């Protein structure tokens, strides 16, 4: 790899200390067994079909038009959306507006390795998937020849980061008052054999991605983004290997999970509107007060003038 002269670089041969620790190379079975305890509960105490609780807020970045922050326990994602700008380097007129997405992992976001500063394949794939999910959601005909920039920064990766990114982007677009057809929500699940882990953590995803070579069990990760009012799937990504039955089942589970998120999103957006409205009202009141004081002064002066 060519050296990056625009940053400070460490020595070329440096490796994470974790590969020298005892539990770095664990056999597949051990990793798998660690995921569930004797009661069939997951490591963080959730049931298999239980999604993590979500924390989300808008108006996170003061410099952006719209922004949001979404947290699924340890998975933390920031998103900001900027004003539409003319599509750079384009000769032809494009009838529909474009959406430019960039997903970036923080260098310290992954538990297994340090992320490179330059965009890698995974980030590119996530950006493409995010754009795919957002394109059918945004009313693109309203801003022809313009593009909206959507930037995602993943601060910490503990599974389901594509789903978190799509949710964050949906909220940020709404915060930026970009016209959309519907609220977009997203959720993912991991399949290992007959077990379905809703909203998987990084450890669960890791096991689901690799599988024993000789066994023929289903394994993999499915992420779906859904427009709940229109009942449309805007993006669907699957890796691993599963039969059709398993995929159909996954779709049904994800549909329900995505719909569960919608009321939360609505609440955040409504609160946002109320908050902005109150702020505006307060500013207006203050302005009125000032004007009144000014008018009073004017009256006084007028009286002085007429008296004088």
């Amino acid at each position, binding site marked *: 790899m060519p050296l990056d002269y625009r940053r400070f670089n460490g020595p070329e041969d440096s490796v994470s200390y974790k590969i020298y620790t005892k539990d770095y190379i664990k056999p597949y079975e051990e990793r798998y067994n660690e995921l569930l305890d004797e009661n069939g509960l997951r490591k963080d105490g959730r049931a298999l079909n239980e999604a993590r609780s979500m924390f989300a807020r808008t108006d996170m970045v003061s410099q952006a038009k719209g922004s949001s922050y979404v947290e699924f326990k340890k998975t933390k994602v920031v998103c900001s959306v900027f004003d539409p700008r003319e599509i750079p380097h384009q000769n032809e007129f494009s009838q529909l507006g474009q959406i430019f997405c960039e997903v970036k992992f923080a260098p310290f976001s992954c538990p297994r390795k340090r992320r490179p500063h330059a965009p890698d394949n995974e980030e590119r794939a996530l950006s493409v998937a995010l754009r795919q999910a957002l394109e059918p959601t945004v009313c693109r005909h309203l801003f022809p020849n313009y593009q909206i920039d959507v930037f995602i920064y993943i601060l910490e990766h503990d599974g389901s980061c594509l789903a978190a990114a799509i949710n964050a982007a949906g909220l940020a677009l709404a915060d930026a008052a970009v016209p959309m057809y519907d609220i977009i929500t997203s959720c993912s699940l991991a399949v290992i054999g007959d077990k379905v882990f809703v909203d998987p953590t990084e450890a669960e995803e890791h096991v689901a991605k690799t*599988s*024993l070579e000789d066994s*023929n069990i289903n394994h993999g990760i499915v992420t779906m983004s859904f427009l709940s009012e229109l009942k449309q799937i805007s993006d669907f990504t699957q890796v691993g*290997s599963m039969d059709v039955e398993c995929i*159909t089942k996954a779709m049904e589970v994800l549909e329900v999970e995505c719909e569960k998120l919608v009321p939360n999103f609505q609440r955040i957006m409504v609160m946002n509107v109320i908050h902005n409205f109150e702020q505006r009202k307060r500013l207006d009141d203050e302005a009125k007060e000032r004007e009144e004081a000014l008018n009073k002064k004017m009256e006084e002066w007028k009286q002085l003038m007429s008296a004088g």
Partner: protein
Amino acid sequence: MAGLLLSSTEKVFIIHGVQDDYRSDGRSNIDYRPMELETDVVSHASGSSRLRLANTDILVGVKTEIDVPKPDKPGLGKLEFFVDCSANATPEFEGRGGEQLANSISNMLERAYHSPHAFNLKQLCILEGKQCWKLYIDILILECGGNLCDAVSLGVKAALFNTRIPFVKAVLMDGGNVDLQLSDDPYDCKYLDVASGPLLVTLCKIGDKCVVDPSAEEESCSVVSLVVGITGNPKFYVTAEEAKNMPDVELKCSMIGMNGPGSVAPKTFKDAINQGMVAAKCLDKALGQALLRERQENTSFKKHSYGFLK
């Protein structure tokens, strides 16, 4: 697809045809257009293939190299896909235009080949934790006439089927270093097991139905397509007698992705996956037969070459 203009009536004609499972060129919704496939076209590559589907022309070469396995996967080899969209293929690829498409195709292939059910990386292991084979799969798109994903996946599977890996005669351990001795005889080599390799099927949504291998006219009627990667059936890649003794395998999805700015309803989506399964099965069977015939011709006599590179 520059200069392709369809009136709304023409579009309606195509949509209605698809609804009745009868397309304007006479195919049904799961029929492919005729293809030409040839393997072993590049003499310097370990395996190669060239595929032509309608106007789409693809050349795939496989290069083998010795590498050190990843520390967390000591017993597995490595695969790397690289797609190059030649600027000649279509005017849109000029400059950096083809880069994004190339990235998304190589990413889809990577995902499709990720599962051990699709391709077993253990066969590329030489010495656990020390040495393994790394396969560089270079895909060159010479001409782009639509339906790239399907064509590329067929070409890749054919090229991998054609790939020969030299036998390792002896392994000497000298302290921490490994010294490999490869066989000198170029014919002393093994073929890879790629029978379960995935094929990508692109399903183009037109109206409520989906079609495979859309023509340019059909593509302009659709806003979204689905790419489904489906693992192969090893039965199709052995002779009929051997196949009788093999257990039945269930076909699996190893990758699903969406392309294009539209969205689909869940019902259409499910139907599309099932349709993709059927299409992939037919395609896999045809590919198996063609590849077996090709291999036989290669070994039995000097085959007559049709290609342009010889």
